[in-house]
Each structure stands twice: as C-alpha cells, then as structure tokens.
C-alpha cells in the first residue's frame, strides 16, 4: 500500500512539474526577448538625433528609408520561424485540435458519401423499374408475335390456286344459274311469235333469218357490252323481232346509238 502511495505521489509531482514547465518555458522566452530589447534600447540611446529641414528632408529621408529597408530585409532573410516549446500539454492540445479537424472532415465526407449512396439507390430502383416495364413489353410482344405466327397459314401456291379455282367455279355456276333463270323467265313471259302469224300474213316480208328469242337478244347485248366495252353497240339484224326491240328501248334496258338508229346497246347498269 505504501509503495502505491509513493508511486502516486511521484506521478502527481511529475504531472505538476510538466505543467509548470510549459509556463516557465514561455516565461523564460519572454524574459530573453525583453533582455534583447533592453540591449537594443541601450544601443539606440547612444545614437544622436537629427532634425530635418525642408530642403534636405526628401533626400535624407530616402537614404534613411533605403538603409532601414535593407536592414529589415536582412533580418527577415535570417530569421527562422520559432515554435512553441513542445511540452506535453502543448502537444496534447495541438493533437486534440488536429483530431477535431480530422473528425469534421471525415464527417463531411461521410455525409456526402451517404447522400451519394442514396442517390445511387434511387437511380438503381428507377432503372430496375424501367427494366421490368421493358421486359413486360417484350413478353407481350412475344405473345403477340407467336399468335400471329400461328395464324399465318403456310403459304402454298397450290392451295391458293385451288381456292381461286373453286371460287371461279362457284361464280361460274352462279352465273349459269342466273342466266338459266333469266332464260326461263323470258321464255315464259316473252315468247317468240309462233308460226301462226307467219301463215296468216302472206306478206313478202323477208323473214330470212330465224327470229331469235328475247333471251338470246339480251345475251347478245350483254356479251357485246363486256367483250368490247368501248363499242358496246350491236347492229339490229332481221333476226331481232322489232316489238321486242321496242320493249327493250322503252323500258330503258337498251339504248340506241345517238347517231345510228340501227345500233343499240345495253344500258350500263353496272357502272
């Protein structure tokens, strides 16, 4: 126990000694500087005084200025920076200051890095969202693509050809049907004059040509219309029974040629 006490005592004395040492050192330095000053003062008091008159003022002042400035320059050149005595407590305070500065700087750095981090995270999230959206778009497009692919039937010429053929056949059938129906209707309602009239009238009407049915007349007109579109006129021949021609003309089914009364054409119902 006593040893511990002794140790503690010596520690305490060394501590106080250390503190006193710094103060004493500073005081010592000040005293030395003051002594230097007193010496300089003594030297100065030995120099004489010199008053100036207006005439010599500028010149003497300039000379004095030169001397003093050179002296000061020399002094500045020779002088080395003095440091405070590096005792423990001085070092401690200096160290503390340095650490404080360092801590401030590190805190700043930390805050900037954290804010940067957050920004980067936000950016990352945004980019990920964008990526997801793009992927969704891609998926839907893919689905669309596959659907369309399935729908597209493999292109084969023969099939097309067959299809067209069947179409044509059906149309031809329809046309035949229509013509047949037309023919029947016309035969029923607009028959040719039978031979009775021929026998009764012994006119020397030349009935060389065999009269054709209304059906045939109409067919002729239709064919001419579609065969030669720029000249759909059919010459009226003797095989046309005049009353039927008149019938067609009156009902607007056929039209005369504007300049030639012997030609007629079908009215263009399809245009």
């Amino acid at each position, binding site marked *: 126990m006593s040893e511990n006490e002794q140790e503690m005592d010596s520690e305490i004395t060394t501590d106080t000694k250390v503190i006193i040492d710094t103060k004493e050192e500073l005081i010592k330095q000040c005293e030395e500087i003051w002594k230097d*000053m*007193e010496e300089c*003062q003594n030297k*100065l*008091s030995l120099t004489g*005084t*010199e*008053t*100036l*008159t*207006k005439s010599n*003022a*500028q010149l*003497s*002042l*300039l000379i*004095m*200025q030169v001397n*003093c*400035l050179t002296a*000061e320059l020399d002094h500045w050149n020779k002088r080395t920076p003095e440091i405070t005595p590096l005792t423990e407590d001085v070092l401690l305070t200096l160290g503390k200051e340095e650490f404080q500065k360092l801590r401030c700087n590190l805190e700043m750095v930390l805050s900037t890095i954290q804010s940067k981090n957050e920004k980067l995270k936000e950016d990352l999230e945004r980019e990920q969202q964008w990526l997801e959206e793009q992927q969704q778009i891609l998926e839907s497009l893919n689905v669309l693509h596959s659907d369309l692919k399935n729908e597209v039937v493999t292109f084969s010429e023969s099939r097309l050809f067959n299809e067209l053929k069947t179409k044509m056949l059906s149309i031809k059938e329809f046309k035949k049907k229509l013509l047949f129906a037309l023919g029947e209707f016309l035969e029923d309602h607009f028959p040719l004059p039978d031979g009775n009239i021929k026998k009764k009238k012994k006119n020397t009407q030349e009935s060389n040509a065999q009269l054709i049915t209304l059906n045939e007349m109409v067919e002729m007109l239709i064919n001419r219309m579609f065969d030669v579109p720029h000249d759909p006129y059919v010459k009226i021949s003797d095989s046309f029974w005049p009353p039927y021609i008149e019938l067609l003309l009156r009902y607007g089914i056929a039209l005369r040629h504007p300049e030639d009364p012997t030609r007629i054409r079908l009215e263009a119902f399809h245009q």
Partner: protein
Amino acid sequence: MSVLRPLDKLPELNTATILLVGTEDALLQQLAESMLKHRCASELRVHLANSLPLPSNVNRPRIDLIVFVINLHRKHSLRNVEECLNHVDGSFFLGKVCFLVTGAGMKSHCSIHQNTVIKLARTYRSPLIFCDLEVESFRATVAQRLVRMLQICAGHVPGVSALNLMSLLKCSDSPPPKEL
C-alpha cells in the same frame, strides 16, 4: 528632450500611444474621443498637444504615431505645424508621422491652398489624410483608420512594420502640380 525621438523608451506592455498636434483644441478632443471608442486588442493612449516641444516634466510613454492636424481655414495652424516639424527627429518620418487636413469641404473659407499641404506631405514623405473633422461620420472613419495605423506603428500587428506600411501607402512620386 527637446526633440522627439521614436524609440527613446522601452514600450509598455500592450499599449500604443498616439500624439495629436494641432491648434484646434475642440477638434482634437473630439477626434481623441472617437478614437478611444474603438475597441481594439491593445490599450490606446491619446496625447494632445498644441505645439512642440513637449514639456519635459511630464512622464509620458513612448510615442508610436504623431498626427499633425492642419485646418485649411486658418493659416496659423499650418505655420504652427511647420514650426513643430523642427522638433521631431528624422527617424520619426519613416512611417510614424501622418498629416491630417480638415476643412477642405468649404472651399470658400480656405485660406491655405490644398497644394501647399500636399507639397508639405510630399516633402516629408508621409501620408496625407483629408477629412472634415466637424462631421461625425467622417471623424469616426478617420479615427478607425488612425487606430489601425497606430497598431501597426506600435508593432502590435505581426509581420507589418511602420516602414512597410509607409511603402504600402505610397504617395505618388510625380512632381507636385504647379502652385497658382
């Protein structure tokens, strides 16, 4: 002690002394008060005098800066200052002397030409400050300037000496304008 010398005594701790010389007592008093209002790190001492030489029976500290105050309205102030200059040691003029001119605002009342004063300042290579000491705000500004100059001349600003200040505040070396 008939001639003022710049470094005749050891300085007192942390004090700076300024000497205002001029014939206008009221103005000097006001200027002194404005100067003392300024807070600065060192203790200020302001001494006022009508003329030099100063009475030797008074125990005064070392003087760091002398300011000669000239009133343009009165020829007497200029003559007084010119006489006082004979009692100042030459080494004072290396930055520790300043001329302060007042009354330049009222041209009609000026009996001294500005060029005279400018020539005087140039002869003695010292800075010249124009200021109307009657106006409160100008006085305060000039007081602040003088306090700064005083601090430098007393050596309380590390790294700048009175000589350096003089070089920085250089008055032009051009020849003086022709006197009318």
